[in-house]
């Protein structure tokens, strides 16, 4: 105990000596403690626009000692509180030269960076020197409130497009419902499907239908279901075998339903075999390995690839060619189209796949929507020409219309 006391007093003595004597000397020999910088001015806080609330924007005029004057300012620290004079909490910092900070919080109350909506908030900005202790605070700004907006103004062009397209669609669907005949250009790939089914029947070999690697919610897969239902109907009539190996379990369940009801519609429900639509595995190359095997073992007369395809497109199409099958493909995956076009007999390019499903459905509603799409395309061409003219005469206001704020 005594020793501790002695040591403690020794430390005290040394300490006081250091403070009393050495301290001023040390300050002189090191870099001088910078003088407090000039404060930032004109702090202004406003609600962030076009958001769900819980966010504000803080702006200010930089300190006179930022990049000029004594050059002392290194960064700005932003503080927030729910009270005008106390409980300020640092919410972020930005390096010198900046005059703006977005204080974006979360909605969740439990979260640390939660910012309440519709509550008075106060902000201040500190100009901080290299020594974090030496700083100057700005005047407190407030009260200010964050609130959510009910409409995202930056997305007006998108909304306009939605409304125009929706109107076109509704109009043409109603026109089609009235029984007006709408012309649809025939697609080579679709005619080929009919021929190929006949060929398979003649040869007594099965038809392999691949729905691709898409999930049940992808548009290309949904388009493929429509085509599958048509194929299944004809297959049921001709009593040819149909093989549908699936990549995704949900796609498989839908495909089963589609095929089953097609057999029913064709009037041959008893010909439907439960295991003609089956699941393989949800792994790209394992799936391909298995389908390759099926192609060489069952030697289908026709392979139909409709849906979403990735790198496996060429592996499938080339193996199919080895097996001597007629091949018809359709995908909206642009990167894989070249391989299908090169290796298959017929290919539906991108949008043609969707069009094919509408075409096969032959329902007036579907044809009406095709017509609406065509009008939208015409609008695109007109807009493109206008935009081209605008940019070449430097009419930037027109181009600004297409700016989408994210």
């Amino acid at each position, binding site marked *: 105990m005594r020793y501790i006391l002695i040591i403690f007093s020794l430390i005290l003595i040394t300490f006081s000596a250091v403070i009393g004597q050495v301290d001023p000397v040390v300050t002189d020999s090191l870099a001088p403690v910078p003088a407090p910088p000039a404060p930032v001015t004109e702090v202004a806080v406003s609600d962030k626009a076009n958001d769900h609330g819980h966010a504000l924007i803080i702006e200010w005029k930089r300190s006179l000692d930022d990049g000029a004057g004594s050059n002392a300012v290194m960064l700005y620290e932003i503080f927030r509180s729910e009270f005008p004079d106390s409980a300020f909490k640092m919410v972020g910092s930005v390096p010198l030269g900046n005059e703006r900070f977005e204080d974006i919080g979360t909605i*969740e109350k439990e979260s640390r960076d939660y910012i309440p909506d519709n509550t008075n908030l106060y902000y201040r900005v500190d100009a901080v020197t290299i020594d974090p202790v030496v700083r100057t605070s700005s005047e407190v700004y407030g009260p200010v409130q964050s609130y959510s907006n009910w409409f995202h103004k930056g997305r007006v062009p998108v909304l306009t497009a939605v409304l125009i397209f929706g109107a076109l669609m509704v109009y043409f669907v109603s026109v089609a419902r009235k029984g007006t005949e709408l*012309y649809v*250009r025939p697609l080579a790939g679709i005619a080929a499907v009919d021929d190929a089914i006949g060929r398979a029947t003649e040869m007594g070999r099965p038809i392999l239908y691949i729905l691709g690697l898409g999930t049940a919610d992808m548009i290309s897969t949904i388009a493929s279901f429509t085509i599958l239902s048509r194929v299944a109907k004809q297959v049921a009539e001709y009593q040819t075998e149909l093989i549908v190996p699936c990549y995704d379990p949900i796609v498989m369940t839908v495909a089963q339903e589609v095929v089953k009801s097609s057999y029913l519609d064709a009037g041959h429900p008893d010909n439907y075999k439960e295991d003609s639509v089956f699941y393989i*595995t949800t792994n790209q190359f394992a799936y391909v*390995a298995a389908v390759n095997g099926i192609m060489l073992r069952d030697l289908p007369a026709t392979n139909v690839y409709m849906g979403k395809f990735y790198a496996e497109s060429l592996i499938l199409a080339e193996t199919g060619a080895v097996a001597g099958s007629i091949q018809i493909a359709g995908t909206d995956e642009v990167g894989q*189209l070249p391989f299908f*076009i090169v290796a298959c007999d017929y290919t539906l390019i991108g949008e043609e796949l969707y069009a094919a499903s509408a075409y096969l459905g032959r329902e007036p509603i579907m044809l009406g929507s095709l017509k609406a799409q065509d009008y939208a395309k015409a609008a695109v061409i007109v807009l493109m020409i206008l935009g081209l003219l605008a*940019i070449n005469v430097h009419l930037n206001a027109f*181009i600004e219309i297409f700016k*989408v704020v994210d």
Partner: protein
Amino acid sequence: MKKTTLIIMAGVTVLFLLSWIIKALALEGMQEDYIKKAFLVTFSAFLTLSILSFLYRDNPFYKFAEHLFVGVSAAFWMSMGFWSTIVGNLIPRLSQNLSVFFKVHYIPGDFNFRFYIPVILGLLLLMRLSRNYGWISRWSLAFIVGTTAGLNFIRYLRSDFIKQISATFVPLLVDWQGTGHFFSNLDLSASGQLVMMLANWTIFLGVMSGIIYFFFSKEHTGMFGRASRFGIWVLMITFGASFGYTVMGRISLLVGRITFLFRDWLGFNI
């Protein structure tokens, strides 16, 4: 089984064992569990060669590799999905007790009960296995389709449609400094003015005629037909170019596999 098949099988087995032993001897002293390591390398090489043998023709080795791959991959995604999504994302939001059991960080929240929706829908999906109540799985399906239709609708309209249109607004006269300047500096240099302008013209006309090709409700005859024909040519150049460009990447994949065979398995110094 045929006699030749048996002989080949026996041969492969012997080679496999031989490779295992030699590899183990090579690794001995360098790595701890060298016997296991040698087996794994040999097995990987065996699988690699089994798949490559498909190029010759379908055979039992390929069938073996294929069936193994199917089984392993199905379980792989089940496991990953369970531990990363169910345990990682769902349980922390649903139950404190289960979070403690799985030692994950519980995320409390006011509206966490909403995460019962996917659980219920997921269970409905499993009803598919039942013969009589399979139809109820359509409810989950409808939810999935509705979600992506809603998300896609805006996403595509915005990034593939509106943004692509505005990206096609290109100046047709690049760097224009008067007709005299244009003709006096006329050349076919790759970075020259003429070539740059040609590029922008091609982009504009190409996109336009490409879109015309995709008109379905109008017969492709006359002027329209000619534009559509030009459109399909542009598309064909696109496809040819992508094909040619991809070749390099595909070859690299093979280089990777061959490097594995020769360096990691056979021990060549390459």
